[in-house]
């Protein structure tokens, strides 16, 4: 035999899944929501996304090349996803330099300082977003209202998100019936004609992306379904008891970051549990914390905080919710 023969242990075949393919599948799944954001927020959405993506890739490159002097892996798709997701969690009118700062925190602090891809505890995009939200609360909550085919950023009208309007209204003692006239219709919320962060507005587009991820088996149903169902049940109980002071479950699911969080942020492979039981517990935790923040907290929205808090618990969840070992408990009868 002329060439060397390879000797290696079994298995000798491998599935054609690679982590790179998984990452780019996530990117593809984000396209519908991106298109809606372009339609709803105009050129601003493009600028925010482009700046976030470019700065995330650039920071990862610089850190790997000059600080760590390691292999540069910006082609693996993970920094690209972080950039897109960070942009999706920002209002479209945010100053460009803030996006750059957010990207630095996301990639530099949340990802690379933990050891890079696979070692980070917290979702990098969310760390970037929450850092900006706490540091620049005014700019981070200036939501350009949805104006179809809006082209001029400077003149964009700003307003609050549906959840913000509800929170404020309830604080001033208004009833839900009075508030409901001020918030967009459920149809508008479903399609994305509403105020909010870039990528979170259109439930419709996010569902398309989510279904794509499920079909491609990038994610399983456990996290998104558990999270949304728990949210619906919890907010539903409050709504049934007192529909004057609490918004309906449908408003809660369709507004804010619930769907973006459920399908794209909580399901982040690296920062979510590795067993199905663990995923269910993790998603329930996110839903409970989100609802508590939304109904009783100071912030109108709590998905980002909820996911980050549960991210911190993932190692614990992995330790306590292990798969059942085969043969560990004998249920079957011996005849």
């Amino acid at each position: 035999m002329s060439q060397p023969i390879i000797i290696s242990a079994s298995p000798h075949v491998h599935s054609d899944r690679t982590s790179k393919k998984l990452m780019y599948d996530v990117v593809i799944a984000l396209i519908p929501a991106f298109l809606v954001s372009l339609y709803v927020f105009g050129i601003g959405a493009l600028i925010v996304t482009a700046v976030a993506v470019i700065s995330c890739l650039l920071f990862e490159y610089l850190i790997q090349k000059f600080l760590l002097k390691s292999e540069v892996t910006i082609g693996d798709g993970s920094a690209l996803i972080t950039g897109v997701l960070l942009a999706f969690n920002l209002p479209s009118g945010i100053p460009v330099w803030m996006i750059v700062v957010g990207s630095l925190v996301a990639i530099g602090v949340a990802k690379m300082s933990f050891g890079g891809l696979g070692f980070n505890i917290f979702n990098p995009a969310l760390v970037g977003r929450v850092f900006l939200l706490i540091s620049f609360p005014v700019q981070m909550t200036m939501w350009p209202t949805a104006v179809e085919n809006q082209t001029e950023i400077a003149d964009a009208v700003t307003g609050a998100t549906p959840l913000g309007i509800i929170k404020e209204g309830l604080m001033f003692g208004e009833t839900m019936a009075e508030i409901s006239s001020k918030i967009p219709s459920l149809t508008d919320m479903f399609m994305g004609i509403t105020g909010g962060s870039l990528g979170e507005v259109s439930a419709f587009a996010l569902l398309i992306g989510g279904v794509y991820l499920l079909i491609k088996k990038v994610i399983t149903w456990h996290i998104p379904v558990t999270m949304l169902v728990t949210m619906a049940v919890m907010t539903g109980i409050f709504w049934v008891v007192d529909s004057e002071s609490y918004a309906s479950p449908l408003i809660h699911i369709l507004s804010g970051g619930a769907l973006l969080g459920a399908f794209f942020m909580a399901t982040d492979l690296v920062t979510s549990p590795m067993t199905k039981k663990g995923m269910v517990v993790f998603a329930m935790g996110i839903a409970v914390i989100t609802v508590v923040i939304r109904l009783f907290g100071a912030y109108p929205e709590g998905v980002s905080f909820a996911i980050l808090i549960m991210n911190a618990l993932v190692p614990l969840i992995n330790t306590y919710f292990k798969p059942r070992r085969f043969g560990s408990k004998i249920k079957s009868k011996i005849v």
Partner: protein
Amino acid sequence: MLKTFPKGGIHPPENKITSSKGIKRMPVPKAVNIPIAQHIGIPAEIVVDRKDKVEIGQIIAKSGGFISSNIHAPVAGTVTKIDKIIDSSGYKKQCIVIRTDAKNETNFAEIDYPLKTKIQLEPKEIIQRISDFGIVGLGGATFPSHVKLNVKEGKKIDCLIINGVECEPYLTADHSLMLEKAAEIVVGVKILMFALKINNAVIGIENNKKDAINLFKNIVKTEVGIEVAALKVKYPQGGEKQLVKSILKREVPKNGLPLDVGVIVHNVGTIFAVYEAVQYGKPLIERVVTVTGKKLENPANFWVKIGTPIKDLIAEVGGLPEGTRKLVNGGPMMGKAIKNTDVPVTKGTSGIFVISEEEASRGETKNCIRCGECVFVCPMGLEPHLLMNLAEKGCYERASSEDIMTCIECGSCSYVCPSHRPLLDYIRFGKIMVKKLETSKN
């Protein structure tokens, strides 16, 4: 609903390119190399000397203990060498080399026994014969069959499962044997049921072999107590513990055997060997081997004499194709890569898998992205990513408490890992270290 095991499993491309090709007979080789350790347990003791003349079927190495097996001469000829030769494990092992006597007619006689259904031996005699005639598990594990059949006092067996699953991609040795020898296999099943004094047997076949399922269903219509179970196509459906779970819903306890839940599992190839040994007194001197690979000119299934060098098989299918980079003894999921083609076929060789350049190289190992895919596919409910880390970092005690020893080495975790991490390699290493740790403690 097809029966299956509930947890884990994968579905790699089946690639059963030789499934409808029947079984050809390999020409008798010029010489055979017979390793004396081709079963699990104690190697057999050589009872012939250099220059001895041996007859076909004569014992050339005697069982070395309870868990051991006799080895018989697959050809009539002269013992030319007793020496250490590299076998499929990659190590040099003691071998008996026999040069085939080209003039001896018994070597070339077409053996085609007519179907013989009447069982004349008593249960004890049957088990003795299985032991004497060197029958071992032909599914790949090569565990001496008589050991499984000697059920200890106090253990109660109520079901015999016949493993016709053949869940390994590419391999079709069992499939083609089932198609050609179905009636004989059913007699073999009855022989074992009689020997074990039990009334139930189930033949488990994966649903990608519908022809075999229908064939057996037709034959067992008239038999009492023998059933055919169609199983979902899912790897590792043929793993002993998975198979028992799929068919009977009984779960073999951790570190236990099917015996603990009243079951004995035998491969269809073994059953056929039992049939021939009990009904015609033929020792285990040949078996069916699939020689396969995408680039091979003429992949096929063969009746092969034990000890035939693999190069003879490869020559028979048209030689090694250009760009061959890997040779595997067994199937793609659990087979062993071998170094050269001088390695002989042994009792455990179910296939020879020839892999080309594109399929042979492993992807570059990347960071674990904690996707959990390895956990989802593990049929034993283990966490391969964790076990790999523990083995890598030398935490063997923790690995042991995380049940590393229950790993069946099916390779599903390494197969699916999107970061191409060598999970099973490290788990195997961890198992070896845990074993060492345990022996040093005792």
